[in-house]
């Protein structure tokens, strides 16, 4: 390739790098955002440049990084329970009611138990019709029990579906919450990672993400009075040394231990009242029938509305056809009973069913224990979660890093200054030690920095705080490459070689060593990338990009400039 082409190649690549960095230098994305928010038209020249600038990591911008485990098994259990409930309803209508069902340990089989006189054969027919291909009969019916095996491939598929659904749900929620550039990713087959850069109200954002959103309608069982139930609960807690806590897991455990003391087919739960800090100050026990009549996925719509006179917020629900029918059925059968409306296992309200409701609508009123503002915010979040749909399974926090924006800004400032001082020190040294060739090396260094940032911006790779450290390190190693070449050239010149030969020998010998050494650090970078998460990955990426740019600027770029002066301008001596 002729010298001219090479020179043009370098000029063009520099221009390209500058072009890619325009959005970062002029803060174009932020300005665009402001225009959009204020509903002003975006100036035409904005579209000439790339739309995104440098992608700053959480430790530089502030924000949340959270890794959550999707409790897939719970999701499968829920799916199977729903299936069994549908079957139960069908069987009841048919006149062959099922008493109860139980699930196998790995959720791979279901056993249905019937009263001795029921017509098992027709029950079996109904079940098979309801779930073609999903359940296969396991063995003959024995004492009124039929066992079914769930097709294995289906379970694996369900697990995958649940994970994908969870990812999608979380994405939807975050999108509607209106955050800039959030990311939600799968990790492995059970986890998801959420990154929310620049989020201001961390707690609320996390609440929205984690909120199960499982809406259920059950009937209150009046068999035990609240005081009697309260006593049983207190006794169970005391006997088993359970702390007074009200998480979903605690409730589950409590029910498991109380099961023998409660009437068959019932379970206990609470209606919780919280203070402004979110701490539970009141817990009223409820005894409910286990049967779920209506669930959140039978909703067509949920709207936040205000009551006319008091302006209290409430959520207006509209059911779909199945939901409407089920709701109509339960309200018809249980007139004068209390309907328990549950969210994520806890009672939200328990209105008395005055009359059958066949229009497929219901309302949830919220008790105001906190300020009106807070209740309103809660109502908004609830409506939103109901609209988006419940999470297919619970999310459990595994790792969380929250970085406040002040720390982020602080980190950027400090690391930028280090970068500037380090570059300055190197520049001065190169000038003194290598004179004009030092100038060339410095230009290569600056071009290196430009290329690194441009490539980061182009691939939208995240620049993290360790990444900045990586760049500072790359500066040191860039010097190494130049030094190797220049020292070699000096040696050759010292031993009497001509300018051209010295250049060729210098580059020829040095490049071999440079390649070897840079490649080894790149290998370290690749391994770091594979094994690392979050900021470490950022470090690895920045390091590798830095080293590759190093190779380009130190080896190719400087050589072209030397050749230009030696062959083009035909200089006599090399200032090195």
């Amino acid at each position, binding site marked *: 390739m002729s010298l001219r082409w090479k020179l043009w190649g370098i000029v063009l690549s520099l221009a390209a790098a500058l072009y890619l960095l325009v959005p970062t230098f002029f803060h174009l994305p932020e300005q665009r955002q402001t225009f959009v928010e204020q509903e002003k038209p975006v100036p035409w020249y904005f579209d000439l440049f790339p739309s995104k600038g440098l992608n700053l990591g959480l430790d530089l911008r502030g924000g949340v990084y959270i890794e959550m485990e999707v409790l897939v098994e719970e999701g499968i259990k829920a799916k199977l329970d729903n299936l069994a409930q549908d079957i139960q309803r069908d069987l009841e209508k048919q006149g062959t009611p099922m008493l109860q069902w139980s699930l196998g340990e790995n959720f791979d089989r279901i056993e249905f138990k019937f009263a001795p006189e029921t017509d098992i054969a027709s029950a079996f027919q109904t079940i098979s019709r309801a779930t073609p291909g999903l359940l296969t009969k396991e063995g003959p019916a024995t004492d009124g029990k039929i066992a079914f095996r769930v097709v294995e491939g289906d379970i694996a598929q369900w697990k995958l579906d649940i994970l994908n659904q969870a990812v999608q749900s979380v994405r939807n929620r975050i999108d509607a919450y209106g955050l800039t550039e959030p990311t939600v990713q799968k990790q492995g087959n059970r986890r998801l990672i959420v990154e929310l850069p620049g989020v201001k109200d961390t707690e609320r954002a996390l609440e929205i993400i984690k909120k199960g959103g499982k809406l259920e309608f059950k009937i209150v069982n009046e068999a035990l009075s609240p005081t009697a139930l309260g006593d049983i609960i207190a006794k169970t807690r005391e006997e088993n040394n359970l702390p007074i806590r009200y998480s979903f897991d605690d409730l589950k455990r409590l029910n498991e231990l109380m099961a023998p003391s409660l009437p068959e087919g019932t379970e206990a739960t609470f209606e919780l009242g919280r203070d402004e800090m979110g701490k539970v100050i009141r817990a009223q026990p409820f005894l409910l029938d286990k049967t779920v009549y209506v669930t959140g996925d039978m909703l067509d719509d949920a709207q936040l509305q205000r009551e006319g006179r008091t302006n209290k917020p409430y959520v207006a629900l509209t059911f779909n056809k199945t939901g409407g029918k089920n709701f109509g059925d339960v309200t018809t059968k249980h007139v004068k009973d209390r309907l328990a409306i549950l969210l994520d296992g806890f009672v939200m309200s328990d209105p008395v069913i005055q009359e059958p409701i066949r229009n497929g609508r219901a309302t949830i009123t919220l008790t105001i224990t906190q300020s009106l503002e807070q209740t309103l915010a809660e109502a908004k979040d609830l409506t939103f979660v109901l609209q988006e749909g419940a999470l297919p399974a619970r999310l459990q926090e*595994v790792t969380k890093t*929250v970085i406040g924006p002040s720390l982020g800004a602080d980190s950027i400032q*400090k690391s930028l200054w280090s970068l500037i001082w380090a570059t300055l020190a190197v520049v001065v040294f190169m000038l003194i030690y290598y004179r004009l060739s030092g100038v060339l090396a410095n230009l290569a260094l600056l071009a290196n920095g430009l290329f690194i940032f441009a490539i980061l911006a182009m691939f939208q790779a995240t620049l993290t705080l360790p990444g900045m450290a990586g760049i500072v390190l790359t500066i040191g*190693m860039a010097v190494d490459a130049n030094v190797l070449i220049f020292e070699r050239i000096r040696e050759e010149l010292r031993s009497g070689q001509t300018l051209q030969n010295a250049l060729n020998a210098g580059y020829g010998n040095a490049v071999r060593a440079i390649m070897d050494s840079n490649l*080894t650090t790149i*290998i370290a970078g690749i*391994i770091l990338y594979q094994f690392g998460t979050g900021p470490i990955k950022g470090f690895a990426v920045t390091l590798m990009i830095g080293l590759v740019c190093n190779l380009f600027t130190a080896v190719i770029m400087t050589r072209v400039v030397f050749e230009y002066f030696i062959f083009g301008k035909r200089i006599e001596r090399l200032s090195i």
Partner: protein
Amino acid sequence: MKFIDKTPRIPFMKHRFLFLVVSLLLMGGSLFSVATRGLNFGTDFLGGVKLQYRFPTGAAEGEVHALLEKMGMPGVSVIRFGDASENRLAIKISHPKEAIESYGKTITPELQKAFGAETLLEMEETVGAKVGEELKRKGILAVLFSLFCMLVYVGFRFDFHFAPGAMAALFHDVIVVLGVFSFFGIEFDLTILAACLTIVGYSLNDTIIIFDRVREHAKLVTPATVEEVVNTSVNETLSRTMITSLTTLAVVVILFCFGGATLRDFSLAMILGIVFGTYSTIFISCTAYIGMVQISPKLEKRFGKQS
């Protein structure tokens, strides 16, 4: 300007056994420290909660510790973070009893009540214990795997006499850094692990430059002449070694001074790595190579040449 006008003739290799002993002592000391004192693992590896606060006025570690004890959390550590003027303290709870999500929410208001409403929670990190274990495992695997890759690479590009020296130098560097961190009780978290891996790359970088020069003189290498050849190679590359080490060192020292508290431990690890990396290249890798070249004919004689 030149530091070194003519190729110097410093007799590095003559004293190589002395320095080998020094290195062995250093490594031994480091291993001992790691085995007995152990490493001060951060929340990344142990799991737990780390809360970093910025206080509006001076807050002493003791006060915060007492407050936390009153709240029923005695086993926590409170460490100053950054300069004294920054008023930053980090609270570390390594074996949390309850759900780790709630610690920030319960502690922050109490601190605000005691030290002023502007007490700011700058950073909150919660890591489940299982994840910590996983990271530890992955971290160790990463280091071992990279050492292995380097070995393969060196064996590939150079002949096998070079490989043990390169490996030994890398082990030495990483172990000494771990030793220093263990001895001074400096927190060892993921960023430090990343530093270690970078040091591995950098140290090998350095070693390869010198080995490359020796390789150039390969025809001259015999068990009798190897010490001389290696010494000459080291001297020939001395100006390059000094310049690179000094500039990279200067750069990391700048990072140490100006990079802020978050990068301080990382820069420290890098400084140690660069210093020992350069040292190990000359006094461990080269020593080992000389040893290999001198022993290898004796081994051949003992075990006979495989036909």
